[in-house]
């Protein structure tokens, strides 16, 4: 009985919350359209704090920050939007506007040859899609294998065997890709530099030498965290160093 009530309450609450978020989103858009970007940001942030998100929400939030010339949060939320829909053209367009404002110019090291082709293939789909592929292929294999096993004519048997064995191989490949992609995603821990200007040290302490300097809005890869206050980062051009943890904001909030 109690459980039922709790269940009903949660449903009612979530429905009302959902409605509230729609209202907040509309209010935010209205403020944005009237040029009250700060107010719009507050509305959008309230939606975020209720535990939901969407590409459009991040996009609008990033736009509002961009209008206020706040580089780091703007880029941060565009990247968030891209995480949800990696191929959204509007987000990419506006992100390029925001990236015009950044100071650091980091040349990424291009990958070449086989490893690039492999990565491109793995990155073509999300790991969930690869997983789905592998399941479908396994089912195809099973069906055709039975067909091969039971069919009486030689041509049918041959065809079924060829198709089913290629299906199982493809299934294994896509399962491997799913794992690989999952590994990439796990390893990928990007962050955005929020400090106006910050020195990257060679060691995780204040005494050590300054390796290089980064500015607001630069995207970095987090490698490890030491003592909570220091984070080891890697740039797209392969440089590494230690940054104070409060100077960056992680894109994956784990």
């Amino acid at each position, binding site marked *: 009985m109690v459980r039922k009530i709790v269940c009903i309450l949660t449903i009612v609450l979530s429905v009302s919350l959902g409605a509230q*978020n729609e209202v907040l*989103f509309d209010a935010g*858009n209205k403020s*944005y*359209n009237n040029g009250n970007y700060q107010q719009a940001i507050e509305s959008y942030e309230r939606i975020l704090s209720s*535990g*939901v*998100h969407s590409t*459009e*929400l991040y*996009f609008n939030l990033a*736009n509002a920050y*961009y209008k206020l*010339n706040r580089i780091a949060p703007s880029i941060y939320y565009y990247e968030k939007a*891209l*995480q949800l829909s*990696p191929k959204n*053209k509007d987000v*990419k*367009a*506006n*992100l*390029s*506007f925001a*990236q*015009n*404002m*950044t*100071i650091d*110019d980091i040349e*990424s090291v*291009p*990958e070449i040859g086989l490893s*690039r082709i492999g*990565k*491109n293939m793995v*990155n073509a789909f999300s*790991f*969930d899609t*690869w*997983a789905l592929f*592998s*399941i479908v292929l*396994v*089912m195809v*294999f*099973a*069906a055709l294998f*039975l067909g091969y*096993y*039971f069919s009486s004519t030689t041509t049918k048997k041959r065809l079924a065997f060829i198709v089913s064995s290629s299906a199982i191989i493809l299934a294994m490949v896509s399962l491997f890709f799913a794992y690989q992609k*999952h590994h990439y*995603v796990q390893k*990928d821990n*990007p962050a955005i530099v929020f400090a*106006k200007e910050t020195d990257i040290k060679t060691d995780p302490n204040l005494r050590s030498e300054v390796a290089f300097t980064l*500015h*607001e809005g630069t995207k970095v*890869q987090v490698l490890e965290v030491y003592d909570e206050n220091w984070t080891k980062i890697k740039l*797209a051009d392969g440089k590494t160093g230690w940054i104070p943890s409060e100077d960056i904001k992680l894109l994956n909030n784990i």
Partner: protein
Amino acid sequence: MKLKLHIIAFLITCFASAQVTFEAKVSKKKLGINERLRIDFVMNGDGDNFTPPSFEDFTIAAGPSQNISRQWVNGVKSFSKTYSYFLAPKKRGKFTIGQSTIEIDGEVYKTLPITIEVTAAIDKPKDPNDPNYIASQSIHLVAEVSKTNPYLNEAITVVYKLYISPNTGVETWRELDNPRYSDFWSQNINVKELKLVNSTFNGEDYRYVVLRKTVLYPQKTGKLNIEPLTLDIKVQVPTNRRDIFGSRLLKTVHRTVAAGNRTINVKPLPEAGKPLDFSGAVGSFDFEVSTNKSELKATEALQATIKVSGKGNLKLFELPKLTLPSSLEVYEPEHSEKISTNLSGMQGQMSNTYTIVPSYQGKYPIPSVSFSYFDLTTKKYKTINSKELVINVNEGPINNNAGDNSNTSTIIKEPIAQSGGQFMSFKTTTNFISKEPSYFFKSKLFWVLLLAPFLILPIAIFLRHKKEERDNDVVGNKVRTANKLARKYLSEAKKALGKKEAFYNALERALHNYLKSKLHIETSDFSKDKIEQLLTNKSVNGDAITGFIDLLKSCELARYTPFSNVEMQQDYSKAARVISIIDKQIRR
């Protein structure tokens, strides 16, 4: 009586005047080690057996020399005899010259011991009539330093003044040694005309001329030495000789004067509160970053200027650098200075002008630049932050090398197909999803779906084998087929077993249904002849056809005649048997 007294008094004085004295006199009691001392032993009687003191701490440079003088003045005889020695001290310190003795008229007289202090070497004793000496006394070169304990990079001035006493004159001078201010940044301020100013020097009336002014900025902390300025001056000195008109003759003397060494103690700038971006500016400054345009088209040029103006060590520090977004094309800055130097230091302005050419449209912020300097009046560091500027580039191509494919470590810059090349406005609708991600990969469902086909395979094969076995079992198959058919068509009849009307109705319907499904006979053309013919066409053997027709007949018959339960049971099993036989034969 009175006369007697006078005579006595005279005699006494005569006697007294005739008293013998013997004294040691030194030219000075304190002398430098490089000086000489003259000691005279003076007596007023003619003595013998003079014994000088040992002079153990001195060397006798000359002497003894005897000097006897006799004088008769107004009938009064005076006599003196002097032994003189010139002594050079051997070392520094206080020494006592001991007693000397003399015998005069049979009596032995002694002098008092004299204490002499020998000090460090002093300048050569001067001859007041020597023109060189006079020149040295009446010409002075003085370096006046405005501050002896300045901060690092604080301006100090050194003014060289030549003091000349009123009775001497200067013809010309020549600089022998120019000071090199090795630890300073220095700038000479040209003295345009020499002006004679009346002043005092050591309490005496003098005149002075400012020869040179220099502004110095110490570049090192600690005790720094300002090298002396040395001049060779032609001085006109009055002599004791006079010309025939009675005015003094002047003698020209070369004199080398130096403004003595000056030591300056330079304080370091305080470490406390030193800003990180402090680049050594000391003084009081103003700082500004400005652009000549705030809106422009792409590929147009824009100039941003960083300007520091005020007083202090301009030129001696670097202007802060402008950090600009990497997407802007920036050329090397052009440096310009407008600085004038006077006694209080440098003042003016320094600026760096950057030429910027944006190639893409968008907003470009010029971040705030900070400039820190040490304020000498408050003795504190001050930091000025420039305002953050934004350049709006309205028209032009769009930057298309951004938008790196995120969430993977391979970043491949891909050109974005632009829809119109503009900043996209906000989205009006959205679907919110929970922030908690739920992934299919590695979920339970995923594993079940992935592994299920592999489980299904053996099961399916196993089932197929079972089926084949059963197909091979002929008798069993027959029974099973009959049962199956009976289940299919006769289930209703079986339920009505015992109730005559219902049973035969159901049985008839079942038979009709069976024929309908197997032979596709419409109910309208349902006649026994037709059924017989169709079944024969389907090569069903005669027994089965007769059985089927019999069944139909008994169904019809049952409506009018009573049937027992046993008969019903027989008809039911007959129907089942007949259907299964027909079914088998039709299928063939």
